[in-house]
């Protein structure tokens, strides 16, 4: 029982972290346009060459 009292909160916390990450990913609107999101990673506008 004493183990449960901290294991369950830890599990829930990890779950909430995952949920939060997913909800954050929704903000960019990529799910509205799945094809476009797939193509966007290939566009080179913002790439800066690695220095050194």
């Amino acid at each position: 029982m004493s183990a449960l009292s901290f294991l369950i909160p830890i599990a829930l916390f990890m779950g909430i972290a995952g949920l939060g990450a997913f909800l954050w990913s929704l903000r960019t609107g990529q799910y509205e346009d799945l094809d476009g999101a797939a193509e966007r990673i290939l566009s080179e506008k913002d790439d800066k060459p690695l220095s050194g």
Partner: protein
Amino acid sequence: MTCCASIASSLPEPGPRRPSVDEVALASKDLGSGLRQITLSVPDMRCGACMALLESTLGKHPEVHMARANLTAKRVTIHWHAENGSPPDFAALIGTIGYTAVLPMEGRDQPDGEISGLLRALAVAGFCSMNIMVLSVSVWAGADPATRQTLHLMSAALALPAVIYSGATFYRSAWRALVHGRANMDVPVSIGVLLSFGLSVYDTFAEGRQAYFEASTSLIFILLVGRTLDHLMRRRARSAAASLADMMPKGANVIRADGRIEYVPLSDIVSGTRTLIAAGDRIPADGTILSGQSELDRSLLTGESRWEAVGPGGQVRAGDLNVGHPLTVEATAAPGDSTLAELHRMLEAVEDGRSQYQILADRAARLYAPVIHGLSVLTFLSWFAVTQDIHLSLTISISVLIIACPCALGLAVPMVQVVAARRLFTQGIVARDGSALERLAEIDTVVFDKTGTLTQYEPTLLTGNWTGPLEFSLAVSLSRFSSHPMSRAIADYASRREWEALALDDVREIQGNGLEASFRGEVYRLGRAAWAASGDADDRTAAASTIVLTRQGEILASFVFGEKVRAGSAMAVQFLKSRGIAVEMLTGDVPEAALAVAREVGIDSVKAAALPKDKAEAIDALRGLGRKVMMIGDGINDAVALKSAHVSMVPASGSDIGRSAADFILLNGDMDGIKVALTTAGRAAVLIRQNFALAIVYNACSIPLALLGYANPLIAAIAMSTSSILVVANAMRLEIDGTPPEREMRRIKKLAGVG
């Protein structure tokens, strides 16, 4: 040229209207803080490079704050600073990089952000329900009361966000239905969820043995999965059809009493309003011309592609395109009362025709909701009368409520139709209505139109004779002054041979007859034999497929044109015959031309010289015989026939009326689509029957079990969800023939510009 321009140009242009700056301003939305937003539909956007090009070009404009392209919906959303009044001409800017922008059709596509909202609700419901499931494993496996109590409290806390936030979708829909006095399927779901949650909370605080938080939350989760999938599928099937069909202007320039010119939306135009129609604009409402001389392209309504000259006092109709000079038109009716609007309404009403299955399912759903509620209440009362145990009775009646929900029945038909429509779309066939597939599976006769359907519009030059190279050069030089398809064919033919560009004076194009010009003092004519040889412009009896070059009536050269039969036509006819489907041709052209094409594609039954009225009557006659007819035409003179047939198809190059009247649009223009559509329709019908069987078997078995008390809410939720998922999974099994190799090769050759 864009990266995808070759694909775009292979689609014969339906002629989308470029919106003017005023229309864009009217359609835009104010975002506050000086920003305005407009969404434009760009059907030619096909790949990531198109998207990047559009975004960077639009983004570079100084007034633009943000431009974002959406590849799935083929749209671009632009935010710009609006302090200076009218917006920059985005349509023209997009046009300079090779794309066409049109205003999206209103109300056709779902509002932005709906998918994200659904996904958010889905994520929360998923998180909550899965964690509650995990906790309940311990509870159901036999935890001691103290642990059980703690876990129940945790489950209650976890269930709250799911029931309140994620369930809101269902509560809203149920509330909307109840407010109107109806009950849809979300009503029993909402009641079941809220009741079981309430009961479980009561049990938790009363230190009861079982709580059913898993039931309510997993129910919400699974139903949301179904709903999200449904939304994702529907999106893709619609977007192309919607952007293709958009042709009418959203507003017009109106001349006010004080002489001011103002751009107003269509709804502000009434009888008596004076409108200014510029060259290239479509007339928004039926009316009379007050001033101006011009030519009109009336093909939208009549199919007559030759321009008609009009002047003051002439009658114009909504949909006519002004191709000459500006006109002032006084409207005699509101745009909504025009012939065009009436026709569109009639067509839409017919298209809205629900499938038989859908009607059955709708009627069943309407009966079902009260029946489920009634059953549930009855269960509660009978169990209470027998056992005097409120708790048990309530639990069982909640189970009945949940398990009896006809979600599987409701999904059975639409899921298959949506999957089929989406898969057909990837093959280049747009199904404008899910029920059309069902009707397609029933046909036993196919009627083809000839021109523009079995054959392409452009005439091909078959043979040419000329008395010498000078005469040939004369003919070609003359033909370059006209954009008539026959002139273009001559010019095209000449580009592969040697000829000399000669300087001609006084070049005139005489409508319906040909071209006339002077060369070295003599008058030459290139056109219809009757007119060119004898100057008799009204004699139309000679064959329309020979063009001659004459000097003072003496024939120097002649060119014979023929029709080009589309590549897949003969194969399509053969396929239909092999299926035992009767094939006929019904055309407005002369019998000789019709028979020639019929011989080439293999059709035996031909009716020629048919007026639009005759075509409709022919279809009605076939229907009177009890036949189920599919009509394939371009809509230019057979829109009514398309509408009255059991099911209809139109190639993408067809007229707008045709495209809104027909059930299927063949984007590739070839008749190969017929085979794909027919086989898919057959398979879809099989899957729908299977789905119905699944749903009915599920309900027939599960309701008695729940009534007898063998199911608790958790089992009810799982059973109900499983049946829905099974129906959806079964629908996904629909297979479409992959692109056959010959078609793929032809497509590649066309793209490469060869053959």
